[in-house]
């Protein structure tokens, strides 16, 4: 197995989007997600001497981030006993309704859908991080931020047809990267 090395100079450029997206699907708050990512990088820096080179850099950072997310939830959940489920079936109105309410609704697939979408988002993020930097940048602007062709070409100083070539290459690369699990 090849030995992995850490190169913190590139961390923010290479991994911040990946880590941020990973965090935001779990904490649902931009500011908190940003803080957690920032803390992860700093913690990684402080723990560099403990890195054994067994995992890839990103995997290692993700494992630190996971701890940070768990810690975050521990902190906000330390006030126990606030959650309570109340069911009142004492009034005559709701009598007889309770059985239906307790079984799973087969048409409610939202939880499963959310999980699948999170996995897909991670897969796409992962594939995006393998693209050349410029390709990924143009593709993100065009597809995810939905910016106009003209705006992007002006900002990056490229021609429209140049932009389409880049988008095309990115799409082909992404499709083949996702092919195994999602097509």
């Amino acid at each position, binding site marked *: 197995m090849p030995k992995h090395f850490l190169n*913190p*100079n590139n*961390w*923010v450029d290479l991994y*911040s*989007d990946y880590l*941020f*997206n990973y965090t*935001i699907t779990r904490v649902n708050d*931009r500011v908190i997600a*940003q803080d957690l*990512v*920032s803390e992860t*990088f*700093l913690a990684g*820096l402080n723990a*560099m001497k403990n890195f054994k080179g067994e995992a890839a850099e990103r995997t290692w950072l993700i494992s630190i981030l996971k701890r940070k997310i768990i810690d975050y939830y521990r902190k906000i959940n330390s006030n126990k006993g606030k959650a309570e489920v109340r069911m009142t079936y004492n009034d005559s109105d709701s009598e007889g309704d309770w059985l239906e309410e307790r079984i799973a609704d087969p048409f409610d697939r939202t939880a499963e859908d959310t999980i699948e*979408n999170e996995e*897909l*988002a991670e897969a*796409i*993020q992962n594939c995006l991080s393998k693209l050349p930097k410029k390709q990924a940048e143009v593709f*993100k602007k*065009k*597809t*995810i*931020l939905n910016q106009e*062709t003209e705006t992007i070409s002006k900002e990056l100083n490229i021609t429209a047809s140049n932009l*389409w070539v880049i*988008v*095309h290459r990115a*799409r082909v690369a*992404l*499709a083949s990267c*996702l092919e195994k699990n*999602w*097509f």
Partner: protein
Amino acid sequence: MGLFFIKCEEAGHVCDKHQYEEASITEKIKLNIHLFYCSACRKHSATNKKLTSLLKNISLQFLSSEEKEQLKKTFEKELQKHQH
């Protein structure tokens, strides 16, 4: 003839534009004529469409460039301490 028959390269380009709803009606007609007889482009077109629908299903969120700058600043300050 040349008016309606396009090469694979152009078909691919129109297909990409179509994914962002930027292809004109004539371009779409030309693309469909091309797909009628070109199976390679048909396959690529299907994959491309599928990719678009996958991308619609998810919400990817990215740091804005200011947020990234901020992150970088904090980190680089700390990094410098470590390199001395």
